[in-house]
């Protein structure tokens, strides 16, 4: 995954446990600033090592950590240098998700080598979305659940996300929500 993901993970560990905890993690994995280069694409194995090590320190399972990180990633992107592009992608849950592929199209052009997932909105009714997630990566279901939860938080919506179907390279999510406003 690209380095910005690692930077977000570092920020999450900083916020939850403090800088020392991240430095200890870096020491354990023998990594440093060169593994945090924003536009660099790193081996997924390294990203998963970082997640596993962070999970241990946060006293979470890897799945729980992935969920928490997915949720955090939306907040991280929304607050940092990506905030304007996040706003431009959509100003409510349904439009944001339906525009994610267009955002990823630009991200892919900016970061050659990044393997970006696809999100297709199969059903879009008030308070109900069916979203198909496609990726050539496996094992990121919890991360995507966290992302979708993070998006609900971003748009001040509440509701439930369920997995309708798991395919070889796709997962179908059922999102029922209502806007808090």
């Amino acid at each position, binding site marked *: 995954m690209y380095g910005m993901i690692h930077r977000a993970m570092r920020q999450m560990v900083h916020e939850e446990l403090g800088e020392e905890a991240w430095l200890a993690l870096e020491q354990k994995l023998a990594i440093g600033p060169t593994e945090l280069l924003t536009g660099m694409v790193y081996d997924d194995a390294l990203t998963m090592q970082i997640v596993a090590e962070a999970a241990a320190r946060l006293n979470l399972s890897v799945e729980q950590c992935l969920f928490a990180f997915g949720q955090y990633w939306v907040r991280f992107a929304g607050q*940092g*240098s990506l905030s304007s592009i996040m706003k431009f992608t959509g100003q409510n849950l349904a439009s944001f998700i339906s525009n994610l592929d267009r955002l990823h199209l630009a991200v892919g052009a900016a970061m050659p080598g990044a393997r970006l997932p696809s999100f297709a909105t199969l059903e879009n009714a008030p308070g109900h979305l069916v979203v198909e997630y496609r990726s050539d990566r496996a094992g990121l279901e919890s991360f995507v659940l966290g992302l979708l939860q993070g998006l609900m938080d971003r748009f001040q919506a509440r509701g439930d996300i369920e997995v309708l179907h798991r395919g070889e390279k796709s997962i179908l999510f059922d999102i029922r929500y209502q806007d808090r406003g």
Partner: protein
Amino acid sequence: MLISLSEKQIGALLPAFLHIDTQLNISAIGPGISRHLPHVRIGMPCDEAFHILNFDTAKFFHEGRDVQPVSLIARDGDIQLNGAAIFHEGGCLLAVRFAVSEEMFADSTMDLRDFGHADPVILSTMLIVLQRAMLEESQATAIELAHERQRSADLLERTSRLAGYMAHDFNNLLSIIRLNTDRLVRQFGKDAKIGKLANIIQEMASRGSDITQSLMTLSLQRTDTRQPLCMDAVINDNYGILDSVLGPNISLNLKLDADGRQTVVSYNDLLNALINLLINARQAMPLGGQIDVSTSVEAGPIHNDGAAHGAAPIPHIVIRIADTGTGMNPALLARAFEPQFSSKPNGTGLGLASVRNFAIETGGDVWLESIEGKGTTAYLRLPIAGQVAPMLDADIGAMPKNAPKVVCKQKILLVEDEPYALEALVEMLEAEGYAVTPCASGEEALVALAQEVYDVLLTDVVMPGQNGTEVAQLACTIHPSIKVILMSGYMPDSAALQPGWLFLHKPMESAKLLQLISA
């Protein structure tokens, strides 16, 4: 007709489209128009809602045909639309899109829904915004890397300083062990058993010294001794090395007439300077040839501070290195000693600059004379330290066991804050026939200097209070002819050494110290 599209389909491609009928009334609008210009309604005259920039509204259908560029500005609101007017029998399709601006991203007035899926402008604009975001992140990363590098450099600096301090303290202890073992040998060396034990202690001290050498290397400390060296002997002894530097196509011709004169330098520094000058000469001779190295003794002012006037004439050794290479033009010649300046494609620009630093540090100077197409001659001048001392570079072990004592009783001011080292040095020097005034601190030494004239100042460098280099500077001011020998296991600042001062690294051998005193 190739394809017929519904309003919804056109809206997906062009969310801000408009259609006007032949009466110039709005007959259809895209979803983007509904969202951002809610007052625009179907049936409304187009020029009531928009100002059409590049058409006279009255002649719109007279002037327009086929497909023509068009720009509109909403009369109510600060929205501009750009695109094409597509004329047809039933009116005109304004295939326009919202103008993209930086503010649009910043103020969140619009989002991706307002732009068509195949809109290349919005994709490129998003790409620019993303790249700007990545640049911001990259700058943050670069700053982090710089901080990390600084942290590493600080850690290395602290480690090397610590290594230097450890080496200093350890060297002091080894020095005391060596000097006192020498005392033991002098007093009881006739006893074979004691002699053997003393040898074991000396050997262990030597091994300890090897460890401190490693620490010195880690702390980037210089470990070489600054001593009087016979210039011609150094060049002669290293003929093989110097010749190998030049390669097979260049021959080295020596003419050494410095008559055994010595200069106070570090052996390694002198050799490096000669090698650098020879490399420079070799590189000027791609077709081969001959390089002449000659030495002579001259007297004259040395201008190593860049000042050409007012320098007093002093006797010095001149080393000339003359090549028959390509030579240099005046512009090149003027910059030849500039650090990191090189006329060669792979040159570092450090060779001649380091020769210049060496010359200045030793109180000498260096310059080049060159004629384009004929060659260059380098002149390195170093001050003469003393007279011929044939024993100096000889093997210590070859010294006569019972060397004659000093006939004329030289007076030595000895400054050493380690009492056991001081005691051992006093005993050894007095046994050699010197008159020694021991001082346990720099302050004591200054009092002694004010009261008496000394031939030699032999002082430790790192001491509490007045340090050795400060004592040496004051001693030279009071007694300009005094010979200064500094001894230390750690040299905090090599620049503090003045030209002509001798320097001996601890742990030192008694024989080497006696050589330096008598040289």
